[in-house]
């Protein structure tokens, strides 16, 4: 576990929009180790997807800009790679699974053709060889009778099967690192569980590291070793899954956990977090969460809290815990 694969250091991403400057990711720092699964949790607009896209260098520049920070993948700063090196990295070392498999696959090509394309681009295989590899991959991700599905188009697959295709494409070039951006959000609950299970077994089998992005705490609880919670562009809490669920420290994490129904305790009413997410174009001074925080103090309105280690491996950015 001590072998860091991906290190984000003080990553700050801005978007220069017509209405003003929006800081989507502000000073995010975390490390993902080899064969670790890292869950990135937060509500829509909290910056988790932008964080993941920065790692893939998929932020459109302009209007986006990576203002500060480094992203180290196996010791190399991703932000300084040439386009050529980045292409190699994307295909062969880091792969990504998207939320909406229907639109992330090309509608005019057969599924087999598309996976084979990826295989041929990255592994330089011949047509026939590539086809064998694709059939193998389709088998691996649990697509029944791959040979007959090879020549089907995306619209002929169900949602779950599409996500399996997506996964086969991501795994096609033996990546060591996988980024899954809400891979189960667009699926039925029952399919969600099988896809989650599939991703988990693939990670284990191929000994990969994973960043799992979701807004569903229940999903990360089962899947991830470590969890980072994001709120309004900041990483507010970071820690091992068990520790975080047992002993949440940041008022936002506490609020999130309180707003989920639980089967093991008797609760009549859920406690929602009051208020709504701040306007990211004009964020509040100090801690971004203070307008909604039940424990807000004077200092919270003035100073942005820094991420501090409060227990072994458990970090929190809150003035309550200093």
């Amino acid at each position, binding site marked *: 576990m001590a072998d860091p694969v991906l290190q984000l250091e003080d990553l700050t991403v801005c978007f220069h929009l017509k209405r003003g400057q929006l800081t989507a990711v502000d000073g995010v720092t975390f490390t993902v180790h080899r064969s670790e699964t890292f869950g990135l949790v937060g509500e829509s607009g909290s910056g988790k997807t932008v964080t993941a896209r920065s790692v*893939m260098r*998929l932020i459109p520049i302009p209007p986006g800009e990576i203002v500060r920070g480094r992203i180290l993948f196996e010791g190399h700063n991703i932000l300084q790679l040439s386009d050529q090196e980045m*292409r*190699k*990295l*994307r*295909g*062969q070392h880091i*792969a*990504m699974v*998207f939320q*909406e498999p229907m*639109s*992330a*696959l*090309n*509608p*005019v*090509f057969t599924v087999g053709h598309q996976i084979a*394309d*990826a295989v041929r*681009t*990255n592994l330089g295989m011949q047509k026939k060889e590539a086809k064998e590899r694709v059939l193998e991959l389709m088998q691996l991700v649990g697509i029944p009778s791959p040979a007959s599905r090879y020549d089907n188009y995306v619209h002929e697959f169900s949602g779950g099967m599409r996500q399996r295709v*997506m996964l086969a*494409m*991501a795994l*096609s*070039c033996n990546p060591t690192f996988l980024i899954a951006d809400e891979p189960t959000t667009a699926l039925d609950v029952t399919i969600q569980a099988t896809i989650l299970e599939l991703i988990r077994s693939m990670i284990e089998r191929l000994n990969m590291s994973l960043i799992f992005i979701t807004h569903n705490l229940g999903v990360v609880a089962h899947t991830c070793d470590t969890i980072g919670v994001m709120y309004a562009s900041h990483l507010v809490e970071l820690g091992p899954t068990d520790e975080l669920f047992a002993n949440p420290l940041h008022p936002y994490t506490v609020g999130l956990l309180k707003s989920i129904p639980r089967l093991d305790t008797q609760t009549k009413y859920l406690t929602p977090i009051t208020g709504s997410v701040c306007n990211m174009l004009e964020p509040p001074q100090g801690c971004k969460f203070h307008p909604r925080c039940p424990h807000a103090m004077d200092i919270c309105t003035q100073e942005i809290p820094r991420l501090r280690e409060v227990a072994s491996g458990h970090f929190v950015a809150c003035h309550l815990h200093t």
Partner: protein
Amino acid sequence: MAKATVPPTWNLDNSPKASLAQQHGHGWHALTNAAWELWRHRLATVGAAMVLMLLLVAVLASAIARYDPVKQNYREMLQGPSAAHYFGTDKFGRDIWSRTVWGAQRSTLISVLAVSVGIIGGIPLGTISGYYGGKLDTILMRIVDAWLAFPGILFYLIAATIIQAYKLSLFWNTVGLILALGIAQMPGMARLVRGSVLAERERDYVEASHVVGEGHLYIAFRQILPNCLSPAIIQATISLGFVMLILAALSFLGLGAPPPTPDWGADLNLAREHMETLPYLAIFPGLAISFAVLGFNLFGDGLRDILDPRLADR
């Protein structure tokens, strides 16, 4: 409580007829819509048949034409249609049926090649402009704007006059015409493709292609472009008819092939002086032009319905 008397809103009848009725409402409206749809598809089929016929005639010209189209025969001048000469003969005694058939080959060949030139130039231009965007797009599209703003007929006239002035052989004259007609098709095609690429570029699969490490040109031409081809195909089909019409107009003005090349427009011009006494001289080449252009237009409209279902209801 009173029992609900409202009939259920769902319909278990899944037959195509039922779904058509559901789509278009009920009663008279549905009927006219269905009739319209049938009619449209019939027209498309008719268009396809006309195009096919034209292509057949063009390919088999040497077998169908019964006389040499340029050979003069002063013993059989200005004859009306007969068993020997289906469409009659002109003032040089040339068989009009043979000239029309060879004219079909010439028209088809020129418009197919000209539209191909337009496609070969326009599609890459539009794809690159749409995919890379930014300054490059602005520059390329302003060039296209200027190009489109130039009056088409003027361009054709100037080009044809220049070609004419050089007194080239028939082959090079034809090549020149094809290039002139083709270049004029490029900006429209580029504009069309750029529009679709622009919309398609934002789709997730483009990002997914980046993620698996594919290069820009590969993504632009192999991933995005195939999704943008249907409007280009429709446009190309309709352009075929348009180019034929322009070609006939240029030949009519004497700016086409040097005589005695069989050519619809030139024959039409030749028929002018006998218009009042021997109208069939003008009718047959004229009909041939109308037939070809109508065929391509109907076929193109039909393709639009088939390839672009979003436009079908308009």
